[in-house]
């Protein structure tokens, strides 16, 4: 298990053992390739710096503009909240799809069919104009007296409409990703957990889903980054505070679209990079026991407790089966 690792880190000197120090295969063409790529990057950089039409001065002016920073904030809020709604719904939809209950299965199927089958732009337009369709939200006895009522426009304002629209649409795509993940877990896991007397819902939540997460996270990261860019469609609601809308507005005000496009691109890239770092840690968490066995914390307490009761078992079959 850790033997190969030990050999590299602590070669036992003086044991008379001659460790192999092989000459690695040389790869001259890799150096040529790297040089070529550096040259292209340098040329591109030089052209961008020297070309006055990029208006780098304007870029600098607007990069940390209050409106732009607020736009970054709103874009982040839209992305994160709509993804949270989508993930919660997707887990629910995926569980429902695997359920014994046919009603759950059909509802889940129809949900995915509808929200995946209509354009997100159309859905956002719909949520934006729901106040016109249903001016009041009324709680009451069906076909009977009304108990409470609200103005739709105040409950579902532009922000809520944007988040709900993005979240519900995304939930349909994520549900399929989660379903694929759940299906990737070996059937024996379900059988073993059920044989222990665990109920299906609990098995799904505690045994199947944590293992499925290994498969679910990379495409979900993909979807999150996709969502970051999809938030620019909220002008359909209309929601006018997100990064794309703000930079477009500034561009038409200054008549300089290129530097403001660069501002938007810069911030999208920054957010994407931050999201990728987050994904790395989430992947590591759910890979425990499988992908990153050596990183797993092996707490010494139980080992010590065991050592008190009896001498450690002879080093039997520990060599095989390890990673």
């Amino acid at each position: 298990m850790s033997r190969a690792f030990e050999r590299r880190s602590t070669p036992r000197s003086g044991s008379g053992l001659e460790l192999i120090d092989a000459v690695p295969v040389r790869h001259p063409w890799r150096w040529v390739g790297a040089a070529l790529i550096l040259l292209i990057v340098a040329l591109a950089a030089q052209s961008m710096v020297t070309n006055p039409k990029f208006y780098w001065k304007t870029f600098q002016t607007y990069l940390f503009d209050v409106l732009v920073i607020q736009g970054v904030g709103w874009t982040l809020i839209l992305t994160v909240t709509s993804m949270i709604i989508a993930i919660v719904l997707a887990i629910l939809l995926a569980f429902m799809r695997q359920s014994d209950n046919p009603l759950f299965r059909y509802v889940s199927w129809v949900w995915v069919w509808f929200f995946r089958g209509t354009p997100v732009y159309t859905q956002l337009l719909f949520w934006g104009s729901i106040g016109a369709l249903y001016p009041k939200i009324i709680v009451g006895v069906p076909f009977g007296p009304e108990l409470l009522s609200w103005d739709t426009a105040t409950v579902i304002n532009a922000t809520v409409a944007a988040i709900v629209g993005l979240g519900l649409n995304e939930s349909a795509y994520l549900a399929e990703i989660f379903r694929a993940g759940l299906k990737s877990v070996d059937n024996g896991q379900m059988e073993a957990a059920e044989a222990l007397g665990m109920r299906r819902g609990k098995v799904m939540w505690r045994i199947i889903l944590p293992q499925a997460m290994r498969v679910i996270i990379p495409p979900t990261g993909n979807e999150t980054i996709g969502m970051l860019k999809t938030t620019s469609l909220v002008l359909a609601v209309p929601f006018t505070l997100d990064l794309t809308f703000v930079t477009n507005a500034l561009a038409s005000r200054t008549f300089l679209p290129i530097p403001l496009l660069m501002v938007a691109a810069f911030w999208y890239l920054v957010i994407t990079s931050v999201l990728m770092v987050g994904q790395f840690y989430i992947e590591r968490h759910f890979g425990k026991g499988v992908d990153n066995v050596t990183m797993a914390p092996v707490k010494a307490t139980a080992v010590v407790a065991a050592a008190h009761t009896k001498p450690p078992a002879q080093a039997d079959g520990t060599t095989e089966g390890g990673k």
Partner: protein
Amino acid sequence: MTETTSPNTSRTLTDVKPLVEIQGVHKFFGEHHVLQGIDMTVKPGEVSVIIGPSGSGKSTLLRCINLLETISAGRIYVHNDLIGFREVDGKLHDLTTKQIAAQRREIGMVFQRFNLFPHKTALQNVIEAPTQVKHQSKSAAKLKALELLEMVGLSDRANFYPSQLSGGQQQRVAIARALAMEPELMLFDEPTSALDPELVGDVLEVMKKLAASGMTMIVVTHEIGFAREVGDTLTFMDAGVVVESGNPRDIIANPQHHRTQEFLSRVL
């Protein structure tokens, strides 16, 4: 645990009520008639070994006892409890998932491919069901789990993930995991078939210990030596029927049926 102080007491008792009663059980997979009328009883504390060629239905029978498969005809009783159904005026009603889960709690199962939860350590595997199903406190469950891991000789591996354990070690953790629910019956579905030959011994040793402690066990296996040494009864199944059943030493030394003779001559 269900440990009794005097091992082997059951071997002499012939008048006790059976713990497991299998009556005329049939099972169809589509057109395929896998079990064709199985009758079998297992007394408390008895070690019942089932052997037979692959495809004989022995694993299916085991899975029916634990409701991983539903029987097509017949009855299975464990502790006088009809498995999988409720009988009202001669008509069978399906059990709810909750009732099925409750029945499974009394029956431990060990699988050919271990099926440990890979994202949980050995200790976490063992305490999962006691804490989640029986709602035991984590500390009480841990104490019990360490005891069980000690019993299977793995207390020093408590915080290892399954992927850090050998097949034999994983199977012993799986046995400890099943025992943690304090079942009155343990089912073993070819527990050593997926192991390297040199690791089989450790697992069989644990099973022997368990048998000596008075646990009722039904073991589907290819280990004829284990059957002879530990088994109280041996059942030979072929093509979905029980061909021969009785004292393991008698059957192995002197099989009556030609199919049993043929099978034993191939595996011995």
